[in-house]
């Protein structure tokens, strides 16, 4: 087995991973960084983020406003110390990115421009047309090339964390083009591997978003936090699930039902002003908008289409010039995929799985409970998003907590000195390699990857959607457990070494099943409705019993063990979430 000796191993080279790597390189250029990713950095899913990143920068805004929007947007399940730190640091991070060359859209004066976003009291979302994530990712990637201490290992699929005496020391990864197992041995690991939207069948997430890092940490004993909170984005293209940014509505796009009626006014989000009123109507939070779709559908007021029921996103009044300038990708995607030009046509949309609020449990320094292990970005749960993330807080999160993970990992490395136990880790790595080899050797496996994946997808869609109840969740948990059991008999059909995508899809499926199980069990046990977790049988929020973070612990032979942790509340006591005219 090849061994790469390094100081800090970063798994994942998307926004958070790159930001962490740069933070390490700047904090201590003498430390060696191994940046390990299953794709080339610019393929990472950060590139698909469209709308923008929120950060207080304008005179009329304040850190308190951003704090309050985020905490209430998360239905008070956010940790308020983390949110306070986040809103404080994000303007600096966004400015830093500006210095590194990010092509932020500008005002005539040359200052960065901001646009309105859902659930935000003030316009504070920095954007680069409707390709913000793309530009941020490429800016970070290109900037990372300046630092010689960052050594990239592109297209290495990480299989296991290496843990010695409770301390995380590295990982094993397969070089995808050769099939060769490599041991990355260092002093600390930062996981920045992204979310797991692919556990659902209908998602904005790319093929690579399979929760590998979440599952890896989880299997190693680190709890996954608040996994029941899955964000549905209200405006995805039907059929493909392609995202149409909240920026569409930020720029003035309207949502209408089959009667051309702005139905959001029926769901405590009115009044239906003709101008975009902040925190109201189309600029309400994502959970509320997706839930409103569900009710419209029940009332028979959605529009049937060949891809299922939809509502219409009306951007026609914005005009061609504004659409081309602010929403060019949205126009390109709508025309290509559903044949609707936003300039002249209504665009069919429906809610689609978009983001995991939950993830690897970390503190505000991005440290997990395991020594030497950090996590940042969508794979982590700090938690600044609580029960519902506000649009444009995730790009900020990956910068703030990616950078913090990097800096704190550097501090940690300074304290640990020389570590013993390399031989034990090499043995562990050997075990990891044997597990992969056993997949190759297995004969007579009956379970097909595609069939298992489909079963898992459909089960979650049916039982863990926008609305859930006891029966559907119990059914989902049973079926997921069944899928998990069947996975033990999975059949690897391609036994070659070079770029064996059958192997990686098989391993990804294994990760997804673990993550899916934590989503279902966590949802079953939370008997209340909060943010993105809506129960038809427990319709109210229950602060007495459930103002707590769900912690799912790995259990190799059965359902995850569920525990709860306190939510940090500093200055905002739980109250009713108010949107629409009443929020003014």
């Amino acid at each position, binding site marked *: 087995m090849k061994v790469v000796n390094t100081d800090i191993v970063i798994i994942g080279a998307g926004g958070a991973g790159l930001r962490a790597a740069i933070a390490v390189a700047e904090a201590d250029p003498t430390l060696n960084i191994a940046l390990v990713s299953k794709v080339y950095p610019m393929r990472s899913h950060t590139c698909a983020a469209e709308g923008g990143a929120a950060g207080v920068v304008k005179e009329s805004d304040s850190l308190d406003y951003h704090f309050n929007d985020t905490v209430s947007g998360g239905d008070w399940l956010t940790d308020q110390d983390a949110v306070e730190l986040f809103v404080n640091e994000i303007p600096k991070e966004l400015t830093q990115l500006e210095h590194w060359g990010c092509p932020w859209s500008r005002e005539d004066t040359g200052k960065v421009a901001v646009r309105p976003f859902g659930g935000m009291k003030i316009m504070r979302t920095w954007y680069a047309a409707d390709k913000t994530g793309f530009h941020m990712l490429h800016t970070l990637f290109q900037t990372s090339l300046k630092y010689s201490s960052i050594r990239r290992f592109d297209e290495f699929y990480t299989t296991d964390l290496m843990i010695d005496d409770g301390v995380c020391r590295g990982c094993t990864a397969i070089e995808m083009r050769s099939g060769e197992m490599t041991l990355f041995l260092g002093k600390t690991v930062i996981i920045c591997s992204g979310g797991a939207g692919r556990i659902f069948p209908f998602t904005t997430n790319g093929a690579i978003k399979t929760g590998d890092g979440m599952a890896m940490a989880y299997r190693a004993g680190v709890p996954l936090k608040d996994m029941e909170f899955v964000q549905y984005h209200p405006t995805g293209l039907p059929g493909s699930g392609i995202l149409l940014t909240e920026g569409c509505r930020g720029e003035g796009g309207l949502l209408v039902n089959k009667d051309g009626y702005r139905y959001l006014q029926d769901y405590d989000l009115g009044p239906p002003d003709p101008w975009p009123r902040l925190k109201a109507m189309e600029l309400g939070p994502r959970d509320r908008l997706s839930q409103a779709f569900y009710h419209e559908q029940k009332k028979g007021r959605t529009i049937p289409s060949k891809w299922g029921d939809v509502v219409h996103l009306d951007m026609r009044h914005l005009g061609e010039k504004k659409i081309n300038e602010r929403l060019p990708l949205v126009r390109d995607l709508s025309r290509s995929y559903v044949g609707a030009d936003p300039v002249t046509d209504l665009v069919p949309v429906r809610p689609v799985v978009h983001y995991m609020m939950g993830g690897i449990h970390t503190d505000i320094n991005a440290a997990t409970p395991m020594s030497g292990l950090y996590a940042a970005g969508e794979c982590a749960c700090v938690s600044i998003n609580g029960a519902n993330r506000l649009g444009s807080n995730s790009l900020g999160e990956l910068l703030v907590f990616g950078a913090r993970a990097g800096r704190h990992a550097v501090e940690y490395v300074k304290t640990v000195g020389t570590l013993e136990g390399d031989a034990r880790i090499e043995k562990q790595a050997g075990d990891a390699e044997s597990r992969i080899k056993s997949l190759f050797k297995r004969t007579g496996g009956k379970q097909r990857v595609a069939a298992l994946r489909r079963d898992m997808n459909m089960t979650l869609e049916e039982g863990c959607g926008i609305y859930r109840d006891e029966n559907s969740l119990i059914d989902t948990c049973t079926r997921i457990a069944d899928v998990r059991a069947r996975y033990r008999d999975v059949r690897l059909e391609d036994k070659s070494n070079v770029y064996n995508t*059958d192997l990686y899809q098989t391993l990804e499926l294994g990760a997804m099943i673990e993550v899916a199980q934590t989503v279902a069990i966590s949802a079953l046990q939370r008997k209340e409705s909060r943010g993105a977790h809506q129960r038809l049988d427990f319709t109210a929020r229950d602060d007495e019993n459930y103002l707590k973070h769900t912690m799912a612990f790995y259990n190799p032979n059965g359902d995850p063990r569920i525990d709860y942790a306190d939510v940090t509340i500093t200055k905002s006591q739980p109250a009713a979430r108010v949107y629409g005219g009443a929020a003014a």
Partner: protein
Amino acid sequence: MSERQIELEVLRYRPEMDDKPFFQTYSVPCQEEWVVLDALNYVKDEMDRTLSYRWSCHMFVCGSCGMAINGEPKLACKAFLRDYQTKIRIEPLSNFPIERDLVIVQDDFIEKLESVKPYIIPKQEKPIDQGEYLQTPAQLKAYKQYSMCINCLLCYSACPQYALEEKFIGPAALALAHRYNMDSRDVGRSAREHVVASHDGIWACSFVGACSQVCPKDVDPAGAIQQVKFTSAVDYLTSFLPGGKR
């Protein structure tokens, strides 16, 4: 939704079994609104687990799924079946070694990308607490088009110059250098010049223009290269004037 039977002729190459690539045909029941990538995913899931290709976002932005479709470099997620006949031929992007099936080796491109110093080289570092650099919409416009590159490599695959001279820095990397040269926050043009304005840089381009024709993001690398040629030529000539660098 209407269904259509499509014959996919896919170039296969499994280095551990094959000495050279061969075509394998899959007859795929496709939905009318599918893209070629959907058809490949169908093959992967239902017909042949051994077929390998790269893909992720399915929305023209991650740049993973570049391949030659009926000989033309395309993103498989942007190649709609409605635009094709019943038979579609799929090959890995040309001008790159084939790692396996539709997966190409792209190390050469990554090295070239790194060689052009694609990052802001500022006149002097500005402290973060002094806020952003001012950049007017017009200054943004000057380089914005060249910042749209998704590194999908369709341009390298279309470029006959790159096919004949592998040392050529190539369209995407040169366009990216131009993007930073044109950025009002950057003063790094001279630092990039020895790579960009070299024999293997812009001067290896003979302006076939195929790169710009296949670019899925309208970056126009060919235009960028010609513009750099112009400024470099002016630099060269002015270097002979009194006070010039020569």
